[in-house]
């Protein structure tokens, strides 16, 4: 506990943008075949340092087969909420769930060069206290840490719906389920909220049998993955409205609300439209009557390709789908970054008008067919995937792995972990930084990135930017 608020907590997004820039990044490393323990890499992102862009410390966990995916902080700017009146937590622990093992690691990164495992919560305990499995997204909320899960009970995680549970932000004791009335929600993926406006939005990927052993083509073609987003009354813990984006919009994943809590809109990325292989972004918003609405505002077309160049899964289509697997919104709510993991492209959209996004910049790197090299001449395996933006919006970092078994279907063979960075132009546009190229240990893939002091997908703000 501090006597003053943690200096990395900011009342408004604008103040977070003005804070000192990040010097370190934390990146998850996973062993795709579970033969090595997963780990946390500490990456030097200080351009003035001799070890710029390199891993300067690694921490490996004592188990095999966790499959690290997403992770988050024990506390963020939400601690400054005027409702809680206790701003004295420390941003000190990273909560890292194993999406395959359902085990949760609490890592103390107070000294990043000597980070250690603070606590391990086993899958049995999670199941006993919540009935959930496959923990995923982490957000620091009004009464503790909220964690979404992708699975329910039973061996394959289909016994009961998945949902969100709450964990104490100091003791890391699991408190229990969040939901009081989940309505029709029966699948889960991401969630985020607007704390002062008192709502939460959640999305759907699929149930564990639909992703653990790879994408199930029959389920995808019969539109059985998630395609609904749910709007919750946050503190009443009930679904206020569920919006079906249309069953062809398969896999509604990342939820990115505007950071400024005065704005009542946000975005959701859809991996693939099964009618035309497009990737899509929906804008959701609260209309003048207080009703939730959602509309498709970005589509990204597939690119025709020779079946010989395509993996088995895609041969029949003769095209590369963009596969919108991750999106991230800059702190000033101006640019939305869209990872097209199949095409090998990172798009930057100007979303100043959220209903009319305009493509402002693009980087081509990797890709199923295109296989664009990094400007430094190195091969970039897979495509741009988990993307994270610096608080000041000037740097965009990303890695290249989606999920072990899916990587293998879309990009057969081991292609190597990568983490790169692009600089954002004064008036938009993005360019890869030639000097930023992280070398990962052999046999690992890279997933989500977290920036020291918070980034554009961790912190929730309680005061408007003025």
């Amino acid at each position: 506990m501090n006597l003053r608020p943690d200096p990395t907590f900011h009342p408004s997004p604008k103040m977070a943008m003005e804070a000192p820039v990040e010097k370190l990044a934390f990146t998850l490393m996973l062993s795709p075949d579970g033969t090595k323990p997963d780990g946390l890499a500490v990456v030097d992102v200080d351009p003035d340092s001799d070890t710029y862009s390199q891993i300067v410390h690694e921490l490996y966990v004592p188990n095999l087969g966790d499959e690290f995916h997403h992770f988050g902080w024990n506390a963020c700017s939400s601690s400054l909420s005027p409702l809680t009146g206790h701003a004295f937590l420390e941003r000190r622990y990273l909560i890292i769930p194993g999406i395959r093992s359902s085990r949760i690691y609490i890592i103390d990164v107070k000294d990043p060069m000597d980070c250690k495992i603070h606590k391990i919560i086993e899958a049995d305990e999670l199941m006993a206290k919540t009935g959930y499995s496959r923990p995923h997204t982490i957000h620091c909320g009004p009464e503790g840490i909220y964690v979404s899960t992708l699975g329910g009970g039973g061996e394959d995680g289909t016994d009961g719906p998945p949902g969100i549970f709450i964990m104490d932000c100091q003791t890391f004791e699991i408190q229990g389920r969040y939901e009081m009335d989940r309505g029709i929600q029966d699948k889960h993926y991401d969630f985020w909220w607007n704390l002062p406006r008192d709502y939460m939005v959640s999305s759907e990927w699929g149930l564990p049998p639909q992703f653990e052993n790879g994408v199930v083509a029959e389920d995808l073609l019969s539109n059985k993955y998630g395609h609904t987003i749910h709007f919750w009354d946050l503190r009443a813990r009930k679904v206020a409205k569920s919006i079906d984006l249309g069953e062809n919009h398969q896999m509604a994943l990342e939820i990115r609300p505007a950071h400024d809590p005065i704005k009542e809109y946000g975005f959701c990325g859809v991996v693939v439209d099964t009618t035309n292989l497009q990737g899509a972004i929906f804008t959701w918003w609260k209309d003048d009557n207080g009703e939730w609405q959602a509309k498709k505002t970005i589509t990204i077309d597939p690119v025709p390709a020779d079946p010989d160049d395509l993996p088995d899964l895609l041969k029949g289509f003769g095209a590369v789908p963009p596969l919108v697997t991750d999106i991230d919104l800059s702190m000033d709510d101006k640019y939305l970054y869209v990872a097209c993991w199949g095409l090998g492209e990172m798009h930057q959209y100007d979303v100043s008008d959220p209903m009319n996004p305009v493509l402002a910049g693009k980087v081509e790197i990797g890709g199923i067919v295109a296989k664009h090299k990094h400007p430094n001449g190195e091969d970039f395996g897979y495509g741009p995937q988990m993307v994270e933006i610096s608080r000041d919006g000037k740097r965009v970092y990303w890695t290249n792995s989606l999920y072990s078994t899916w990587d293998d279907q879309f990009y057969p063979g081991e292609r190597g972990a990568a983490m790169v960075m692009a600089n954002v132009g004064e008036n938009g546009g993005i360019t890869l930084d030639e000097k930023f190229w992280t070398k990962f240990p052999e046999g690992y893939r890279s997933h989500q990135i977290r920036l020291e002091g918070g980034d554009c997908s961790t912190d929730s703000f309680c005061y408007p930017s003025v």
Partner: protein
Amino acid sequence: MDLTTAAGLWLAVILSGLYHGLNPGMGWPLAVSSALFERRASALWPALGALSLGHFAAMLGILLPFSMMTLLIDYEREIRIGAGLIVIAMGLYLAITRRHPRFLARIPPHRLALWSFLVALAHGAALMLVPIYLGLCAIEELDQGHKAASALMTTTTLALGVAILHTIAMMGSGGAMAYAVHRWLGLQFLSRSWFDLELLWALSLIVVGGIGLLTAL
């Protein structure tokens, strides 16, 4: 009974009000938030009004039962000792556990009066007034002699007076703070100048309870 003690106790009612008002945990940041969301400074005042109403209701909720009890004149000393002990116990509980009641996080952000009411109860803000109030009752008691018929009237009026004066002081200091932050200091004041008052708050309860206990013995 000497006027200095009475004046001292009334001063304590006002000072505790100022203190509660300044504590961000009692809600002035919510008034700032409200003004920022509505993009007009005048939105500070309805928010402060709601917060004060909740605080006032919590004061009355705690003081009125004690005002009934003071009618049991024979047990006056025991009541004051008991009240002192309760306040000390609350202070110790807050000092030792340093935990926040989770139910407070379930209150919707727009229910400011309810929030303020529950916060004042949960953090012992209302309880802090009890020893002071009982001290005032004791003075009234000595001044008036044992006129049972008017005693209830007197103690109830006294409770109302204490709650009103305390709330006005709280509204004044909290309002000044909210206005200053909204108008001049800016939100950085929140992140840079907010001190952890929890321990100090718990100690205040223990001190007030202790003084109540000592004067009763």
